[in-house]
């Protein structure tokens, strides 16, 4: 029973970080109508930023949030502005050219990281990386718990932003109907750019928070892009609440998969979930919750 609760806790905590990754992806999905296949690669970039700050400047990863999030926001803005927005005006036979473009961007990011940092694994070992505390006989990783706290705060902030601010309302308007929003005077191009920036910023936060308890190499982006789309599909494309549920579900599934089936199958779990959702719950949690 203890193992069960231990796994449950680990899964939920990790799920909080996955929710951050998923919300970023689902925002982009909702507003642009595309899947961002460079999502994990953007996270990888944020992780390297965190690594550089820690290793060469001695900055604590949590402080680095103040660096990595704005930096990735700018990267997202740049990607949208200079590669994706222009495509809206290009007449092409190629279907899904924006999605293909994100693949290209992801490849470039990965390979640039490989040039600079080589393919070697690196990690950030802080004083709290391996620290744990116990509640009722169940151990909590300090770093993971802090990360979970940050993730909850960021998610709550995101909701407040989307529901209460003018910019947030504009984003939701474009997500519902870009054409109608444009007619109402919303600059859809600008909203797309900001949304991509925010999506990148959120996934950057997840990367920075994850690094103290994880490892890093240039190809780490691919698996996280896959996790991101599993979360998004699980939650229902474009649903923010769904992304949170999806993130926690994936976290739990991976944790239980690793505990009860075997460590090797952690990555497989996401793909299995993906197929199950397509088969039995197309539309994801959105279908159940209607939000």
């Amino acid at each position, binding site marked *: 029973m203890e193992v069960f609760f231990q796994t449950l806790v680990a899964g939920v905590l990790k799920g909080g970080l996955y929710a951050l990754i998923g919300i970023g992806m689902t925002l982009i*999905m909702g507003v642009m*109508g*595309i*899947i961002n*296949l460079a999502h994990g690669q953007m996270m990888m970039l944020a992780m390297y930023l965190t690594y550089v700050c820690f290793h060469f400047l001695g900055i604590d990863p949590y402080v680095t949030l103040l660096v990595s999030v704005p930096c990735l926001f700018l990267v997202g803005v740049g990607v949208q502005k200079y*590669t994706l927005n*222009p*495509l809206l005006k*290009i*007449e*092409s*036979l*190629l*279907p*899904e*050219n924006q*999605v*293909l*473009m994100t*693949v*290209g*961007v*992801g*490849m*470039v990011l*990965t*390979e*640039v990281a*490989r*040039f600079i940092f080589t393919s070697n694994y690196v990690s950030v070992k802080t004083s709290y990386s391996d620290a744990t505390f116990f509640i009722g006989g169940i151990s909590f990783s300090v770093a993971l718990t802090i990360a979970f706290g940050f993730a909850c705060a960021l998610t709550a902030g995101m909701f407040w932003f989307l529901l209460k601010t003018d910019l947030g309302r504009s984003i939701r308007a474009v997500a519902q109907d870009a054409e109608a929003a444009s007619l109402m005077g919303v600059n859809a191009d600008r909203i797309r750019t900001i949304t991509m920036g925010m999506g990148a910023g959120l996934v950057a936060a997840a990367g920075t928070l994850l690094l103290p308890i994880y490892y890093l190499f240039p190809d780490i982006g*691919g698996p996280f892009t*896959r996790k991101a*789309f599993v979360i998004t*599909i699980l939650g229902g*494309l474009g649903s923010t609440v769904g992304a949170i549920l999806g993130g926690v579900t994936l976290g739990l599934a991976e944790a239980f998969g690793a505990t009860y089936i075997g460590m*090797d199958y952690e*990555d*497989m779990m996401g*793909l299995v979930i*993906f*197929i199950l959702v*397509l*088969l039995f719950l*197309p539309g994801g949690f959105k279908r159940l919750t209607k939000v």
Partner: protein
Amino acid sequence: MREHRIPLILLALLLVLPLVVTEPYFQHLMILVLLWVTIGTGWNLLAGYTGQVSFGAAAFFGVGAYTAGLLSHHLGLSAWWGMALGGAVAVLIAFPFGWIAFPLRGAYFALGSLALGEVMRQVATSWESLTEGMVGILIMQTFISKLPYYYIALALAVGSILLVQAVTRSKLGYYFVSIREDQDAAASIGINTTKYKMISLCMHAFLTGTAGALYMNYMGFIDPHVVFSLHDISIMAILVAIVGGVGTLYGPAVGALIMVALQEVFRSAGFGALQALTDAMGGGFMTVVTKYVSQAHVLAFGILVVVVIMNLPNGVVGDWARIKRAFRRG
């Protein structure tokens, strides 16, 4: 006959080419080009004509290759049986996949195909009793000369182009393009969109799987990372089609030539030119450059994706008029 003149002349040239160019290295490259013509043409049928972008070419390529390899490895049959069966087995994989993914519109198919490739790689890696896992499959090649492989690859490439040509001139082609242009409109004129997307997917799977089986026969060795590679197979298939020109008959053929050449330029560091330069200059800086260039083909492909989508959205064939104009002006 006029419209067939240039392709026929080209075909005649391709038939005599390996008899003139006897260098095995170039024959090898030509075989790779022809394999990619087949794979790119198959992808183009599904994505360029039917509008369904797939990131799963590797799934079908790998299944075809493993079909050939395993027939030989476990049953002691000739791996050439794989040429007959590889495509069929790939279709068997494609069928349930399309059946799940196609009724859902939007991003599901693209994401599903990406996941399919990963699942197949995981299966091939973990199911060691069947596939030997990471060790891979090694078989004896039938021929020492490259010529037989060349002509088989040529037949396959020509066959795939003829198939697409026949399709585009039939009801099937009209239905595919209608689906690409507007699924609602297609359904409203009586097209069973799921069924025809499925047919397109199965043709893609068949061509790619057959190419995979030929690859097994030709190379004699496969492992999960080679044949189920996202970058080197699935993305390469996409690049071949988009560089050449999606939705055009000969686009993938042109794309295959460009992409294989480009890949080789990087892999061999400018066909050894950089190495020669390094030797001449006595190492140091140039050694570093050579090392980076030979590692940079994925980076180059990434940049190529970005540049082609932005500047040549219809590929070399589709945008030929524009390319010509640009040069004349310059």
